[in-house]
């Protein structure tokens, strides 16, 4: 466990790179939106930008990079795969907790300032129960974890099985989802599926199901990394 902590610390050695990228991109996205909507003026209904997604995308990319670059480096320095994996889990969880807290605060500020004075919804999540602060916080945090673990899992497939692994994975995904889509169309399930999504509370879509997905991803990643070579 000590070594895992070391690995987590090691990830923050170059913290300007680690923290700088996601927040830099998010800030850029925010100011562009701010400038854009300020110049357009009143829009009805009030705009929801979706720019918030940028920081999550960066996290996905960052977690992929971690495996591609830090795995050969850290394992090369003399760390077990288990410690490397746990250290990264720790690192991503720490980032998720911290970043979600900042986003939560920004969302609160956004509400208090009437959408930065121009009724802009950048940090606020559109379909979430605002009255439950825990759920609201988790809705920021859990998707970070899901995307982080997804990035780790994809990169590990590449590390262990190379391009062929990625191609197989992509094919399987396309065939799987495509097949389900065809099946749903054929059997006329789409209205039911749409209804099911509409019936789900926002909390379930942003917290419950991502958490359910993140766990098996994390477990699968661990199994893959056990036999991966740098």
């Amino acid at each position, binding site marked *: 466990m000590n070594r895992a902590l070391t690995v987590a610390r090691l990830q923050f050695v170059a913290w300007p790179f680690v923290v700088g990228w996601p927040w830099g991109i998010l800030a850029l996205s925010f100011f562009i939106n701010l400038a854009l909507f300020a110049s357009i003026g009143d829009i009805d209904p009030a705009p929801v930008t979706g720019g918030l997604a940028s920081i999550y995308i960066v996290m996905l990319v960052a977690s992929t990079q971690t495996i591609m670059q830090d795995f050969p480096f850290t394992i090369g320095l*003399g760390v077990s795969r288990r410690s490397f994996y746990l250290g990264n889990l720790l690192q991503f969880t720490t980032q998720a907790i911290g970043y979600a807290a900042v986003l939560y605060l920004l969302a609160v500020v956004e509400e208090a300032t009437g959408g930065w004075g121009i009724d802009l919804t950048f940090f606020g999540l559109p379909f979430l129960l605002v009255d439950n602060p825990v759920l609201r916080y988790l809705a920021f945090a859990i998707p970070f974890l899901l995307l982080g673990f997804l990035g780790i899992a994809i990169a590990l497939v590449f590390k262990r099985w190379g391009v062929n692994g990625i191609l197989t994975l992509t094919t399987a995904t396309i065939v799987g989802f495509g097949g389900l889509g065809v099946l749903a169309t054929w059997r006329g399930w789409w209205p039911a599926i749409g209804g099911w999504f509409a019936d789900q509370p926002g909390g379930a879509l942003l917290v419950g199901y991502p958490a359910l997905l993140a766990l098996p991803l994390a477990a699968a990643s661990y199994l893959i990394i056990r036999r991966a070579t740098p």
Partner: protein
Amino acid sequence: MSPVISVTDLTKRYRGGVTALDRVSFSLTENRIYGLLGRNGAGKTTLMQILTAQNFATSGEVRVFGEHPYENERVLARTSFIKESQTYPPVRVHHVLRAASLIHPGWDEEFAQQLVDDFRLPSRRNVRKLSRGMLSALGIIIGLASRAPLTFFDEPYLGLDAVARQIFYDRLLADYTEHPRTIVLSTHLIDEVSELIEHVLLIDAGRLLLDADAETLRGQVLTVSGPVASVDEFARTGTELHRVRLGGTARATVRGDFGPADHDRARTLGLALEASSLQDTVVRLTTATNGAAPAITGATSKEAHR
């Protein structure tokens, strides 16, 4: 003394049927400098990767500090493996050194800084912008300053000029003297390291050809030249590794347990005698087993790989 490394019947076959290591067995004693020699693709890197649990054996037994290295922090924390192909995350040099210092319990920061100065490494520069030689220097600094009880250097100096290599040898020797540890040095530049290493492991085509004390080896391989009949007679006392012939004159490289009496005998036979350097010995041994140098070849045949 219990060995730092013991390897028994280690075999590694890659998918596609390439046998990188073929029933290799040896053991390494604590606090010595070993030379791991062999041609490109001989299996040296694979061996070191397996010993550091970065790769997996197909069969055979590996013990490092008496334990299996796989997922074993007790072993890995005492090991440092510097390889030519090492990649680094795209951060600054001092970030990389800081990361290495966190991983290695024996890290000496002062020594690391001194080495950074010695190699004139720009510590604020991003590793992506380092030249090949600077990347090699970075690896060498990590390997030396980590002071790991077991340190592997796998061709650590691609792109380093002769001056920088000499700095490496000097610092390695000085630091090893003060902080004895087991060092495995894998290299092509045999002449440059032949006096640093205490023991030689020679791998060729996945097999261990030689596991010998460097000093014992020195003088075991002689090159004699003179009349064919005399060369023939001398060659009978050992194993002939190589021969070239020009008319009635021959030159043969012979391996045997030679002493001063054998030197005298060669002189009495009217033969010119030359002891082979470690490099020559390695070249002869690796070409002889490949069948590339049959016992008698014409004088026009190039002496391979010189």
